[in-house]
């Protein structure tokens, strides 16, 4: 039904830092329930592009349109925390969780809907929210540790906690920057499962270097190189593209 309208539409986006053009005229459309991968060599501009979607940095040209529940938003004009509240969640490349709060409390901040000071003063967690947290933590295997501080977690577990925080906040569009970096094979496997579950009611854009992971979960893959969109297609199409092999895949995907 809604298939025809993309959830995320990047139109001719450019991003510059001083004189350096990190992203050059990139356009793409991501549709509902898709898992889109952004791949490309280091410095290709993948993180920079995600940053622009979630409002962390601004475009120097073009625009980014996000659609949710019949509304259309120009993300350029919206503040970061508002962007989150209209359903765009972001996980950063370096895992970033709140070390002064327990794992459960980390989840608590993510699960609530009303994030105003007043609501934070007054409202307690609802039963459903507690259940959601429990379910989510159980899925990533952190439930038993819920009252510990994240300082005890491994790098991979911190990634999971952050992903779990994202999931529990039920975004419509999820932006993940290298979610499986630092994870072992089994953890990566589990993350792939998780993404496939989330996919049912969420659109996902993932930056990742782990090609096996990409093969497993990607709907479509967009290849960036030197800030430009090199090609776009299914993983098979992309990995057959000579240019992509030359600049990226041929180098072992790193």
């Amino acid at each position, binding site marked *: 039904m809604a298939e025809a309208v993309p959830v995320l539409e990047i139109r001719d986006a450019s991003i510059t830092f001083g004189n350096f053009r990190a992203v050059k005229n990139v356009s793409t459309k991501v549709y509902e329930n898709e898992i889109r991968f952004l791949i490309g060599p280091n410095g290709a501009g993948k993180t920079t592009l995600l940053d622009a979607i979630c409002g*962390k940095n601004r475009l120097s040209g073009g625009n980014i349109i996000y659609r949710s529940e019949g509304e259309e938003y120009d993300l350029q004009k919206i503040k970061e925390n508002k962007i*989150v509240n209209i359903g765009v969640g972001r996980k950063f490349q370096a895992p*970033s969780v709140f070390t002064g709060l327990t794992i459960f409390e980390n989840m608590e901040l993510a699960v609530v809907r009303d994030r105003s000071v007043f609501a934070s003063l007054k409202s307690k967690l609802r039963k459903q929210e507690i259940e959601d947290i429990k379910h989510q933590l159980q899925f990533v295997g952190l439930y038993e540790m819920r009252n510990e501080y994240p300082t005890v977690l491994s790098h991979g577990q911190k990634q999971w906690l952050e992903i779990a925080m994202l999931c529990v906040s039920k975004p419509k569009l999820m932006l993940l920057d290298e979610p499986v970096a630092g994870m072992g094979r089994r953890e990566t496997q589990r993350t792939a499962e998780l993404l496939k579950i989330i996919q049912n009611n969420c659109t996902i854009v993932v930056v990742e270097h782990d090609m096996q992971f990409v093969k497993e979960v990607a709907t479509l893959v967009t290849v960036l190189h030197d800030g430009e969109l090199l090609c776009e297609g299914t993983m098979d199409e992309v990995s057959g593209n000579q240019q992509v092999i030359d600049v990226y895949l041929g180098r072992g995907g790193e």
Partner: protein
Amino acid sequence: MDLKNLTVRGHRLTGKNILAMLIFLFLATAPIYMSSFRVNMLGKYMCFALVALGIDMIWGYTGILSLGHGVYFGLGAYCMAMHLKLEASNGELPDFMAWSAVEKLPAFWAPFHSSVFTICAVVLIPVIFAAIIGSLTFLNRIRGVFFCILSQALSYALATFMIGRQEYFGGSNGLTSFTTIFGFSVNSPTTKMVLFYFTLVFLIGAFALCTKIVNSRVGRVLIAVRDAENRVRFTGYSPAVYKVFVYCLSAALAGIAGALYVPQVGIISPTDINIAPSTEMVIWVAVGGKATLVGSILGALVVNFTKSIVSEQFPDIWQFFIGALFIAVILFFPGGLISIKDLPAKVIGIIRKKSSKADAADTAAVNADAREPKKDPKVSRTPVGKGGSV
């Protein structure tokens, strides 16, 4: 279901609550066994403790170091002092204005005739000022050292302004020579006692309020802002709004403290709100133990009490002594005085480690002896404790 034990924060604070109870009990009973001179001193320190609570909220919990809370203390204090001055002047022009050849009471003084206005102003003026400063800085993402310097400059600016406005605020002499407060003589023992208990009630109330806030989700957001502000933003919260909120809260507490300070001490002058006292306020919190609430009260009381005792005994060197106390606490108890309770466990830990290290060294030596006769007995030395980030 074990849903109950999911939310834990709050119960963990019982030890601290007991300490708070003991402190309040001590303060409440102090007039029974202390001279009125000492009790008056304690009243003053309770005002400081009130300021310290606010600083703990913004620095200890939220990680914003403000070296300018003298401003808010001063605003509250001056508001109250203006009212008291008008009461003391009996409808005439305040004495210092007459000396400065001012002929008519300045318009902004007039509302301070009203005690209701004064009581509101004591809270609202600091809060409004803090809201303006806070919005300008936090919304523009000024933080860390920049905010620190800015806040310090503010207290310097206000003090300088007050000094320069001899005709409106009494210049460097400040405002003094009060006679009555809301009609009661400021020097009567009863008034003093009432003020003392009034301050205590405010302190307890503020402690309860801050505890409630810290235990609510707001407290968790504040800690999160301290740890990873960006993550907070991308979790959908506006860190700036929370910062302005807690900044205003601390300004309100400082303002109330200033207003309670004036009638008990009898004077407010620009030296009380300048950079040095503003910095000292932060030291109280650091010495007591930040992000603990009760620690900041303890710190304010202990530092100021020590300061008075030492300055009475050794008027020449007390400042060095206070400096030494500060350094000693930071070096040996990075978590502040409140972390002394961890000391026994820490010592036991060190002893345990030492003995197990000795054991390990012994066995290592035995094993090593077999192979090579000479080996460094120093095995890995793991640091104990956590070393709080200042």
